[in-house]
């Protein structure tokens, strides 16, 4: 699953640590999500979406959506 988390974070000038604190997870979790190694749970995805003012599907794209 692809995501725009790194771009959105950069737009807000937040470090991974700052974003992690805002959504209540570890910095490693944010790094793993950004690099595509880990897909967040639905509650965390919604929390990230609310933080950036985006819908979940605007931030996260399934691989098949990327191909289409």
């Amino acid at each position: 699953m692809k995501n725009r988390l790194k771009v959105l974070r950069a737009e807000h000038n937040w470090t991974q640590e700052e974003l992690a604190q805002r959504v209540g997870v570890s910095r490693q979790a944010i790094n793993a999500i950004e690099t595509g190694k880990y897909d967040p749970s639905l509650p965390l995805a919604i929390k990230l979406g609310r933080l950036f003012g985006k819908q979940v599907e605007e931030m996260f794209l399934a691989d098949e959506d990327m191909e289409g």
Partner: protein
Amino acid sequence: MEGVMEMANKEPRKESNRYSWAVGALSILTAGLGVVHILMRDVYQPGHPVRLLVTSLLVLSFASFVFFYTRTLSRLDEYQRQIHLFALAIGFPLSLVLAWAIGYFRAEGLLQGRDPRDLPLLLLVPYAIGFAAAWLKYR
């Protein structure tokens, strides 16, 4: 959903790092005391004060390790839990295979020199292998 999100927000706490350090230190201490216990069996007779002291410290250290380990697990975020789940998914079957293999080989007359008391310490090895595999996968 709000309730779930509130719970997710409470998962990582600042104490988790402190507990992680305690788990690391206690795992090293437990392993060290285990090795000391193995080495001193040929030196001191059962019931010797030194042997009793090391045995008591070993049990206390192992119990403390389990206590802090469970405290740490309850404070991990979802990503860190995924890593530990992966480590257990590999470590648990490996532990079963190792324990059964040792049991069967002992029944066949092999490995008689090994003390069954050392098995719990030996079972930390499969978990370490699982954790290393998880670290490689998720690093």
